[in-house]
């Protein structure tokens, strides 16, 4: 049965629960927006060696943390009051996980910002251009995974999962490049390690986006694509 048909029964009645679910979705999205924004700003600060911008990313994390607590309470309340079943149940359970993933994405932004503060105090050591690419890709994955979540788009979700490999690949390239340069220019060894970590954090963002996409796939289709389980389907 298609998703549309599932909701086209003549006796379908309006559910107050749906209104509250819509509000929850909205809030999840805005939290996603905040996390995405944090990554964007952190990357920009990193590329521009902008300590002040990096500092603001660290400070703004508190707001995201508050949103996290608020959302968790909303989820708990919805669980307690509406005892969701079937798709609603999958949605609610995954919502809990998605909140968690988004919070970690924001933490990665803080990590990048901290590396940036370090780098800003050190002599200039130009980062590999692939780091900027990684950031762009990871943010796009995050955005698409949230879009897939809002629209219940399982195809988009599975596509996001496949894109993770690309970021991993870039991460390996950045890794090799930086190791090689650090060997040649020992004065930049410390900066190279910081940049390596930034790349690593961005790779983690892509992983979180992948997790969200996997959760979305599960909400919509009721099957997991994690760990290549159900890959045959």
């Amino acid at each position, binding site marked *: 049965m298609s998703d549309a048909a599932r909701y086209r029964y003549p006796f379908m*009645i*309006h559910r*107050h629960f749906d209104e*509250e679910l819509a*509000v929850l979705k909205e809030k999840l999205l805005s939290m996603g927006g905040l996390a995405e924004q944090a990554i964007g700003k952190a990357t920009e600060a990193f590329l521009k060696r902008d300590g002040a911008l990096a500092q603001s990313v660290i400070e703004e994390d508190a707001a995201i943390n508050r949103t996290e607590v608020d959302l968790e*309470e*909303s989820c*708990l*309340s919805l669980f307690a009051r509406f*005892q969701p079943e079937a798709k609603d149940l999958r949605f609610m359970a995954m919502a809990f996980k998605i909140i968690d993933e988004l919070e970690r994405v924001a933490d990665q932004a803080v990590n990048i910002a901290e590396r940036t503060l370090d780098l800003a105090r050190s002599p200039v050591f130009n980062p590999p251009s692939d780091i900027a690419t990684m950031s762009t890709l990871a943010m796009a994955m995050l955005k698409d995974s949230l879009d897939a979540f809002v629209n219940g788009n399982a195809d988009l979700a599975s596509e996001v999962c496949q894109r993770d490999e690309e970021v991993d690949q870039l991460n390996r390239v950045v890794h090799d490049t930086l190791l090689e340069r650090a060997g040649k220019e020992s004065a930049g060894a410390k900066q190279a390690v910081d940049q390596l970590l930034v790349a690593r954090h961005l790779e983690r963002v892509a992983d979180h986006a992948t997790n969200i996409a996997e959760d979305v796939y599960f909400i919509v289709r009721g099957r997991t694509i994690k760990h290549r389980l159900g890959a045959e389907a």
Partner: protein
Amino acid sequence: MSSIVPSVKPPRLAVREAPPADASSVAMAVDRLNAWFAENHVLRDISITFPKQQVTALIGPSGCGKSTLIRCLNRMHEVVAGARVKGEIWVDGMNIYGEGVDPVQVRRKIGMVFQKPNPFPTMSIYDNVAAGLKLNGVRNVSVLDEAVERGLRQAALWEEVKDKLKEPGTGLSGGQQQRLCIARALAVKPEILLLDEPCSALDPIATAKIEELLHELKTQYTVGIVTHNMQQAARVSSFTGFLLLGELIEFGTTDRLFTNPSDPRTEAYITGRFG
């Protein structure tokens, strides 16, 4: 969140909020209410407030006194022979158990819907809804027409019955009959609507419709509901009171009561570990 769960602030789990205390947000305040059936002391020192334009649910195991309590709220308890009440209930600055207060007048302000749908058997759908006004002397047809349509619309029944208003009310399905009873109660424009296990005789679809209706009704009315189905209380109410053996064990926002009850007996009941 505030637009949906209509507490003033999004509830924080850590806070043990008291029911709103200022008079403007309270529709009804029960103060040390005691009730008896003959020698049987069924309610003991109940104090509870019903916040304005909210749904407040009363839950508890059978025989805990929740139905007695809700029947005290519009002086229906004393209708039973041998029943007695002591205590105060304040509505609009008036103690409805005060001296010289006419229970008939109280009931016009505080409507009630019962467990089993009970439309008047000889009356049409129209007459059922108009009954409260007609029997209290309203003869003006346009006033009656307006009240009937408003009542039926508010009870989400208008679309289903507008073409058969002259047919008997008893010809409707159980769920429709119950909404007819809600319309009948609303037609007299009460301030407070009480429902005593309104869904216990209905099937799940009809139940869901009534529950949805309650979410609509609270935009205009203060609603009190007794239910033996605590999931229903969780779904429809903003505040919940838990009664046990005639005592109010705990009262608070539904969110808090169902996620983090403060009394172990409440916890035992809502988690189904009552023994």
